[in-house]
């Protein structure tokens, strides 16, 4: 029985776990039904302008595949064996009716698989509003910003069609404020985890972040604050673990068991690139002036570096990962990447050579969202954790 006097994050984690495990989206359906006219808009990894969806009065929800609990019956008939798993489980969610309450879908330009899935969705669900969100790859300010601002104008029109009313600039500004707060809190959780990883296990933090892609931002902000206040007060045992950064898991998500296995193998995860949408802009997005311009500006000049984005400056290729290692006091990097993932796997050799130059140890393995066998992961992560300790002479 829980000791009532002692602060615990357990009830929050339980709530997050329930949201995470529910493949029929009961909570989101309930949100929609609670008020007439409410709409839900899904988005795929790795980024979507959630502020616009929120400003339209819709609930933005992250569609992140089916995890290891979804039985894929139809989805495999749409994909060859050499394509990653997330599109097939997403198709499964669609054709099995689990997403029938979703009014619109946004497919960002992360890779050719999700790009093509946007067209498949148009063909398979012609009655649903579907939009491909083309993100700029030219990061010169006066080229990329107008392009992305225009794209955002089109996304705004797309959402206006769904809700049947205009979205005002003030509504967008208000949403930017809320998401600024969300990003600030998310970053704080990450910072706190790096400070006391024993009190904020990554398997919990992960669930907390997944919940953020399934609940209204206002609720999630409150949840993040509450979680931090409780987690700080907990007295979990400090272990002699190695501190690692996870890289490459920004799209198809690893099974929760994989995160747990890495921790069990003796690693504290002190930074990662799971669900990067929730801390995409590194500082506050401006709230005065043209809101779309502000979002576009933030995307071009202040967003997270990650494999699906072009790095215009060769001198800093991979620097973000080295920075993450240094800033979070990590001792090594684990490349955990979905099988057949072009962005992650093509980028990896460049990141590895940056790490090598910086003398940072790393290992790598591949996974699928439904990987069941964790023994190899545990062994590899365990050996890595031990070797890091040997390296650093502990």
């Amino acid at each position, binding site marked *: 029985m829980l000791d009532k006097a002692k602060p615990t994050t357990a009830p929050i984690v339980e709530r997050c776990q329930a949201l995470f495990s529910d493949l029929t989206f009961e909570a989101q359906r309930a949100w929609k039904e609670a008020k007439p006219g409410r709409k839900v808009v899904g988005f795929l990894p790795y980024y979507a302008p959630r502020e616009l969806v929120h400003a339209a009065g819709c609930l933005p929800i992250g569609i992140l595949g089916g995890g290891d609990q979804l039985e894929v019956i139809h989805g495999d008939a749409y994909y060859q064996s050499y*394509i990653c798993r997330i599109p097939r489980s997403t198709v499964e969610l669609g054709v099995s009716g689990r997403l029938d309450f979703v009014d619109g879908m946004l497919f960002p330009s992360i890779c050719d698989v999700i790009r093509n899935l946007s067209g498949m969705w148009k063909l398979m669900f012609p009655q649903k509003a579907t939009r491909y969100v083309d993100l700029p790859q030219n990061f010169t300010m006066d080229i990329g910003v107008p392009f992305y601002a225009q794209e955002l104008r089109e996304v705004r029109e797309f959402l206006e069609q769904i809700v049947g009313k205009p979205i005002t600039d003030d509504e967008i500004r208000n949403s930017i404020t809320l998401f600024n707060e969300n990003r600030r809190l998310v970053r704080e959780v990450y910072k706190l985890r790096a400070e006391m990883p024993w009190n904020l296990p990554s398997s919990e933090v992960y669930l907390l972040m997944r919940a953020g892609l399934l609940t209204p931002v206002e609720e999630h902000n409150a949840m993040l604050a509450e979680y931090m206040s409780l987690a700080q007060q907990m007295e979990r045992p400090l272990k002699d673990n190695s501190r690692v950064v996870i890289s490459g898991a920004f799209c198809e998500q690893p099974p929760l068991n994989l995160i747990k296995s890495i921790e069990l193998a003796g690693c504290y995860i002190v930074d990662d690139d799971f669900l990067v949408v929730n801390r995409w802009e590194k500082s506050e997005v401006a709230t005065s002036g043209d809101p779309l311009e502000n979002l576009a500006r933030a995307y071009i000049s202040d967003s997270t570096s990650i494999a699906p984005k072009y790095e215009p400056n060769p001198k800093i290729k991979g620097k973000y990962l080295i920075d993450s290692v240094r800033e979070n006091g990590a001792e090594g990097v684990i490349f955990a990447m979905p099988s057949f993932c072009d962005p992650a796997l093509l980028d990896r050799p460049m990141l590895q050579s940056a790490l090598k130059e910086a003398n940072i140890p790393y290992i790598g393995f591949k996974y699928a969202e439904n990987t069941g066998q964790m023994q190899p992961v545990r062994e590899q992560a365990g050996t890595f954790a031990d070797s890091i300790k040997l390296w650093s002479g502990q």
Partner: protein
Amino acid sequence: MSTIITRPKAAPAEIIRDASMAKQKDMLARHYDRLCDAPQTGEKVCATFVPGNLNELIMCFDMVNNLPEVNAIQSGLRKQSGGYVMESEKLGHSEDVCTYVKSDIGMMAKGNIGPNGRKLPNPDVLLLSYTGCFTFMKWFELLRQQYQCETIMMHTPYLGDGKITPEMIQYMVKQLKQDVIPTLERVSGVKFDIDRLRENLRRSAKAEEDHIWVLQSAQNKPSPIDAYFGGIYYVGPIFGAFRGTDDAIDYYKFLRQEVEERIRLGKGPVTPDGDMPQERYRLVVEGPPNYTHFRQFWKMFYDEGAVVVASSYTKVGGTYDYGFRHDPDRPLESLAEYCLNVYTNRNLPMRVDMLVDYINRYEADGLLINSIKSCNSFSAGQLLIMREVEKRTGKPAAFIETDLVDPRYFSAANVKNRLESYFQMIEQKRSSSSFAA
């Protein structure tokens, strides 16, 4: 005891039957020599991709263009790509990613020897025309690391909504004006002259007319060309280093005359074994071919009298079916439109429409998809494409799987079996519809 039989290394079998092929071979040889001579002649080298290649612009700076995809194809045809791919994997590149990239990187690691047996020069600039394929971006980031040279990003928006918008063109023209042209000027030391570009574009348009005429000649019965296996040769100059040159104009004029003559004589396509005697099946093919067993693969078709009358792969370096031609009066806009139009930059519904249109217009018996392990750009979604096209045309479709330049993924027996049953399916469909009639 085992006996080791060593065979003398045979030169790869040549597939040359047409005079136009000989002409192209000569053009290519000259191009590769020019490329390899660049360190001596002082010509600057610009590496870029086939889809969205801006050859007319590159020519304005007296630069010579190097296309790593074409090098990978050449390695595939010469049966060297398998070794290169493995070399790349040894260097740490994943077995899951595109084999073009790995063939290129493996070739570099092994001395970067081109198809002419000479060392290819390092590029002076990488023009990352980011059109229709995600891999391109990482490929050039990888090469940039190797060559430490300037890299220009030229981002082509995807036709996610099935249309080209004025804003897309503006974005691209701005990139051309602000990034691409100034950087090429700086690297080459040659000042940009828009009239020179117009001239090049005028030449492109001329060649494009004859080029598309040749591809569309497959509407004849029998088709005088094979628009996939033969088509790969026919697109060579226009997809590669020759668009905008007099060489390309001459080549396509010459090719057109050859094809006109074949139509006049009622002949089918030329194959490596001579003229195809009888056209039994007319197919539309979606997806790139396999290059490591190109001739064997093609033979499986022509032995059965199957001719490909239209293919999507021959639109990957530019789509000319629907009226697009480079336009000297709108030079930069027209370069942008060219990039936007390439096949892999079209969304799935557009691709389905195009394939359905081909089946109808070319009176094909059905659709064959060659799904390439390497290529998510083409392959992701092809099973749905197959179903949609089947549904909309009522014609049977089939699916085979190979790879571009990785010989490990070409299983001749499997492909042959699939093709044989597909041809039977077409026969059955025919007899049931004639029975119904």
